[in-house]
């Protein structure tokens, strides 16, 4: 028997167990899976933002050497629309709905009208990728080009092109949430600041493009789909129950190593459905791997809000009221979770970390001729944080108050258990002042303000920005989300199988696509069972092995998935006690689990090790009545509330006055994500999140040409992703406020950086330009050109 684990691994930065395969090139991503007889799919896509299909002529493509089949939407009889999993309708008693969600169809291959550039209309399947691509160019579509609308703030304008007949004025839904006397708050305000705040459209850009490989086995009737998914069970459920109508138990979805997701791999996409359908027709495996150009056109985009925000303040800085009116661009179709993002993941976070007298939030979701918008890292919460953190600093400027002071003045005081916000949710625990205090200490804030003043006198434009954020994660209590319109509960499963030799296999419904579950969950299990981590194996990403799962997004894996595993381990220990009691001729209630052994309380000599109990479980030769052989337990954990991580970020920028170039000099982050299993891994996620948040503030943005509706940023040459030489080392710290919601005290850490960093950087640039009279910049990214224009406009005014 192996040695007993003496130290707990929870809280230790152990190296990742998955890394040896990745650093040697032996990871298995979807495009690495090779099957004999595979065919390759190439999609024929709309080159127009909006166009009616008159005819599609596939004859020449079908004659192309190597082509196996060409299908259009008309061929896919009996196939349904891709479902939207969130239903905002008054008849469903969904709170806040002012105008029902227009449930518009989204066919895997559109047959009538293409509604965005890249909308697929046909698929060519051939013996090789080249043959498929070549033949796809021979599919002739006769297009009737229609006027298009892409801009968020133009979608509902009179005369705008109509995207769907079922959604007049392009309104997808209207929704409102709030509490307190907002009008009263604004009446009694000493100062009101009002700003238009635009949160531009982003593309997730996971480094691995989406891919799928579908294989139908005629002999068994089984379909296997390898797919880049953050949630293989959700893919299977949506595909079987809603789109293809095929039996779920005959479908196995495998998400092997997945190269990043950031939300974009949550959703069920056209291509996965088409390949799964086509393999059943052709009885051969069908593969599709997205090119990066296709990824820009078809991966769900993120953000894209235009907001008018107003903050009512008393002279002393007290936040009296907040009014937010947002138009959220949903794109051409309703993606899987799209309606939830600008509503229940957005409006519910507008209380932030502040005591605000009254809040009103109104959201209009609109359709446009653009790629569908859905959750991108943070999903709704970055948009809420951005609005709040920008308007709070605008308020401080109007009052000539220090931006750190105005925050401190309005923080919700330290609490644990519940803080009821004005926007429906109840926070779990928080100590917001402590996070900011720690940040200011790391930063040496007062000293910096003196340096900034000295620099200004020399004509240098230095700026500092803050953001103090909250987010809702560990998604999500099924009762709550069900009441809000979710089509599914958001629990997680965890199965623990103890083998006769004492080895332990753990099956989680969470999915790792960079998060390091094979390490962190093993740390948890090794601790709880007090066995060496080498005895523990974590299995994820396969519906054929894992009972069920809701997957990984919303920073839910450790808190929700981890708790499900913990519950199963507790059951294993309980059963182990009964087995040990039988072996030791004692009563189960007299057995303790100590140092990897089951022992009679207070009698260390009377003990059996974990391995002996494991073996006995499978060799039950003289078992007592009522005790079942085997040692395997499954649990489903459904959290009672969201968890609410928080923190304080700050950064220093220098703006070059003559060019508008922004240089990031320092970036500091203090995050409170509750208890932390592996600090190294959490820090890594914070770093990556910060880089994405900085990317939005300074460089990234999906841009559509207003006239043609073409995506102007459709390659990596045109969409500016953060690069190594543009970013500093991040200075990170932590406070720890465990959540009372789950027994692990873990809140969730995957999205904090992305949420906090964007307003932090923009606030810093505005601060750098404050001396020139700039108090706001409406739109991002803060490219050199945009900042230069801002400087020119400000200097012209003076």
């Amino acid at each position, binding site marked *: 028997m192996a040695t007993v684990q003496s130290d707990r691994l929870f809280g230790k930065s152990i*190296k*990742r167990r*998955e*890394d*040896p*395969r*990745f*650093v*040697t*090139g*032996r*990871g*298995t*991503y979807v*495009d*690495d899976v*090779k099957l004999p007889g595979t065919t390759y799919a190439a999609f024929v896509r709309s080159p127009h933002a909006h166009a009616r299909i008159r005819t599609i002529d596939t004859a020449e493509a079908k004659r192309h050497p190597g082509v196996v089949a060409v299908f259009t939407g008309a061929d896919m009889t009996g196939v349904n629309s891709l479902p939207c999993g969130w239903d905002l309708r008054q008849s469903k008693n969904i709170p806040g709905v002012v105008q029902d969600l227009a449930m518009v169809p989204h066919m895997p291959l559109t047959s009538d009208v293409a509604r965005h550039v890249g909308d697929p209309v046909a698929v060519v399947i051939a013996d090789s990728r*080249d043959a498929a691509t070549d033949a796809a160019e021979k599919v002739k579509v006769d297009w009737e080009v229609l006027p298009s609308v892409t801009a968020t703030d133009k979608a509902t304008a009179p005369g705008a092109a109509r995207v769907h007949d079922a959604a007049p004025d392009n309104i997808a839904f209207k929704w409102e949430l709030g509490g307190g006397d907002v009008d009263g708050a604004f009446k009694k305000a000493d100062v009101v600041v009002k700003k238009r705040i635009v949160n531009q459209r982003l593309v*997730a*850009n*996971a*480094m*691995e*493009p989406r891919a799928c490989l579908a294989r139908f086995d005629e002999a068994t009737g089984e379909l296997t789909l390898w797919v880049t998914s953050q949630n293989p069970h959700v893919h299977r459920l949506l595909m079987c129950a809603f789109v293809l109508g095929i039996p779920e138990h005959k479908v196995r979805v495998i998400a092997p*190593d*997945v*190269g*990043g997701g*950031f939300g974009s791999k949550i959703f069920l996409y056209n291509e996965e459905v088409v390949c799964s359908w086509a393999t059943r027709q052709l009885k051969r495996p069908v593969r599709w*791997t997205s*090119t*990066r*150009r296709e990824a820009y056109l078809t991966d769900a985009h993120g953000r894209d809000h235009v907001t008018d925000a107003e903050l009512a303040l008393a002279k002393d800085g007290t936040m009296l009221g907040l009014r937010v009116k947002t138009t959220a661009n949903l794109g051409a179709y309703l993606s899987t979770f799209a309606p939830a993002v600008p509503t229940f993941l957005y409006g519910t976070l507008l209380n932030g970390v502040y005591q605000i007298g009254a809040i009103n939030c109104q959201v209009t979701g609109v359709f446009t001729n653009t790629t569908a918008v859905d959750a991108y890292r943070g999903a709704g919460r970055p948009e809420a944080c951005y609005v709040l953190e920008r308007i709070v600093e605008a308020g401080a400027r109007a009052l000539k108050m220090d931006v750190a002071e105005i925050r401190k003045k309005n923080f919700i005081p330290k609490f644990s258990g519940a803080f009821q916000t004005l926007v429906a949710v109840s926070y779990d625990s928080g100590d917001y002042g402590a996070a900011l205090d720690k940040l200011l200490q790391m930063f040496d804030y007062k000293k910096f303000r003196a340096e900034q003043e000295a620099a200004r006198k020399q004509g240098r434009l230095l700026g500092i920005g803050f953001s103090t954020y909250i987010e809702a994660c560990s998604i999500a209590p099924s009762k709550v989300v069900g009441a809000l319109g979710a089509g599914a509960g958001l629990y997680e499963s965890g199965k623990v199988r103890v083998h006769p030799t004492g080895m332990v296999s753990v099956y989680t419904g969470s999915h790792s*696509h*960079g*998060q*390091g579950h094979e390490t962190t969950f093993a740390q948890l299990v090794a601790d709880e069972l007090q066995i060496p981590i080498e005895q523990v194996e974590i299995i994820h990403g396969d519906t054929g092995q894992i009972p069920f799962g809701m997957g990984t997004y919303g920073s839910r894996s450790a808190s929700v998935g981890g708790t499900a595993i913990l519950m199963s381990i507790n059951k294993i220990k309980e059963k182990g006690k009964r087995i040990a009691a039988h072996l030791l001729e004692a009563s189960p209630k007299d057995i303790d689990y100590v140092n990897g052994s089951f022992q009679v309380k207070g009698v260390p000599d009377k003990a059996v090790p974990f391995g002996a109990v494991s073996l006995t479980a499978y060799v039950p030769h003289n078992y007592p009545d009522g005790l079942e052989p085997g040692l395997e337990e499954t649990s489903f954990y459904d959290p009672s509330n969201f968890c609410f991580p928080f923190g304080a970020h700050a950064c220093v920028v220098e703006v070059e006055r003559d060019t508008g170039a922004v240089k990031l000099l320092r970036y500091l982050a203090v995050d409170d994500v509750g208890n932390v299993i592996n600090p*190294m*891994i959490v*820090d*890594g*996620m914070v*770093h*990556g*999140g*910060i*880089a*994405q948040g900085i990317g939005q503030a300074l460089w990234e943005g999906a841009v559509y040409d207003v006239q043609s509706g073409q995506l102007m940023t459709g*390659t*990596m*040459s045109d969409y500016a*992703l*953060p*690069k*190594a*030489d543009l*970013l500093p*080392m*991040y200075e990170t710290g932590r406070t720890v406020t465990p959540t009372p919601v789950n027994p692990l005290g873990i809140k969730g850490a995957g999205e904090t*950086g992305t949420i906090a960093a964007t307003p932090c950087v923009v606030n810093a640039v505005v601060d750098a330009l404050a001396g020139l009279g700039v108090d706001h910049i409406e739109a991002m990214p803060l490219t050199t050109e945009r900042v230069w224009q801002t400087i020119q406009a400000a200097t012209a005014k003076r």
Partner: protein
Amino acid sequence: MKLPVKMTINGQTQSHEVEPRLLLVHYIREVVGLTGTHVGCDTSQCGACTILMNGVAVKSCTFFAVQCEDAKITTIEGLAKDGELHPIQQGFWEKHGLQCGFCTPGMILAAWQILDRTPSPTEEQIRHQLEGNLCRCTGYHNIVKAIQWAAENMATAKK
């Protein structure tokens, strides 16, 4: 029309007939079957397909396979020797220089080039020379640390 091509990949001679338009990266992945070299874009921006060709790091999407006659190529699979990780691979593991792992093979081979050119690089030199490789997970912080770790350990090993 197919053309013959012969090259050495990770010490083994490879000889095939391929279409002239076949990119080296697809040759490596699809014909030779070494899938550690990844494709992350179609504009030579991401660097996930970086390999070593005749001792220089190159993006394997920028060559046709038929251009590489007699080339000596090392892919990520060929970097570890006798089961021992190369110090750069070890550095990425030690310093948590990867999360999803997709950009990692290209990052490691780009790092090989950096350290070949500048054995004791400054942080700025590392960041500048990593410009051709994109990572969406790490924010580059720990990749820089990983390369610094490798530089120190390779220097110690030489002494």
